[in-house]
């Protein structure tokens, strides 16, 4: 099901171009926060359970299926952030599929 409610033609900021740039940075702000939140959760859990140190995390090199998973996640991330200005048509089925990506 596609969104039918359209954005008004008038820009929110000075121009459609500045709206687009602000959309990119706002998406980035959101994604960055999610990451910061996750890292904070991870560090807390790892410390509490005495599983590993921060140095071990820094030295780890992704490979194999994990490296491929990161590739998929990164592609979806780029699409979401860089594509933000063009993301005004939303589709329930597409959003359902996004649930496969972290």
């Amino acid at each position, binding site marked *: 099901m596609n969104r039918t409610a359209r954005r008004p033609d008038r820009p929110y900021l000075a121009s459609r171009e500045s709206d687009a740039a602000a959309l990119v940075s706002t998406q980035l702000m959101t994604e960055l926060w999610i990451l910061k939140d996750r890292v904070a959760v991870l560090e807390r859990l790892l410390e509490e359970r005495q599983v590993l140190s921060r140095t071990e995390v820094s030295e780890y090199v992704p490979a194999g299926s994990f490296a491929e998973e990161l590739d998929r996640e990164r592609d979806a991330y780029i699409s979401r952030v860089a594509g933000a200005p063009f993301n*005004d048509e939303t589709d329930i089925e597409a959003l359902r599929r996004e649930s496969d990506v*972290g």
Partner: protein
Amino acid sequence: MTLAASTSAFLEQRGRAGLQLLGSLQAYAGSALLARARSDFEAHAPTSAPRAASWPPATPEGWRASLDDTRARAEKSLAYRYNRFFQRWVAEEQYRRGIPATERRRARLDVPLTPARHSARPSRLILDPSLRMPGWYAGVEWHLQLGGYDGYDLASPMFVAGIGRFIFSRGGYAAVPVGKDIRAHRAQVLQQLDNRSPRRLYDMGCGGSLMLTMARQQFPDAELVGGDLSAALLKSGLAMSEALGAGITFRQEDACAVAEADRSVDAVVSFAVFHEMPDEVARRALQEMFRILRPGGQMVISDPPPLRAVSPLDATVLDWETENRAEPYFTEAAIRDLPAMMRAAGFVEVSERSLDGELSYPWITLGKKPGQEKK
């Protein structure tokens, strides 16, 4: 029938953190940025007389001219523009993030609520498969919700576990200031009813069950009935009512033609519904509510404040909803004379007031059906 099993049905980290960010951004836009925009608005006061010399204007045309003037003045402020940009973005993004987050928890969220055991009060849902959605309602994606109220099957759990919990609870949107809780407003509105022991109470446009389950707390012995056009909202209302043992009857119906006999209810309430209706529909709905009220019965309406009751900048912010948050009749409703409409429908002792004098929200309009029921 599905709904979030309970508030313990949390979203996973990505969904939770993303929606929390949106709630924080909306609160920031609705507080710090709006305060800055307010200060800029005063600084940009016109040096020459605006097109509409007096506030509030007297006619719809006067309102449009005045609101165009105040919007141009507001948009001179970068803070106002960013405020509006973020408001729109959050309104869109909450569904873009909420749906994938809900899907990742579908197995947990797509489960029936457990009905209350040993409840002496069964709840009921009466759907009308033959009901034709009226033209003013059909196809509108209210508040930018994809597909409207009936578009997404897990919309109710999405609100309970995510959007309502992390975004709406913060306030800072439309007429709701930051830090204000519209759940508490419902209880406040119900407290305005003079009759503290109604036998039968009708909630016009009940949506889910929030208003009626709160009514159950205030009126333990009343028959509670709610009507709405959305089958999805009514189904979620039924599930919650059953879980709480609240004993509510939900009916799918048009507020202009409800399945209640003449003079059959003691009180009618309506929360955040009239601003979604065009004038002609509001007029007919009031006539219908007047019909079903018993003599001496009371109607209490709660909605965003009329534009005449707020400052020019706040009126500009409210007018913005119409074009930007899929609220097609918001401005039409905000400039209508609802008390006059109620009087025209036959109501007496009509009055209106803010329940929070400073902020004008929530705003209530009350009226009674003349006469007294024979004992």
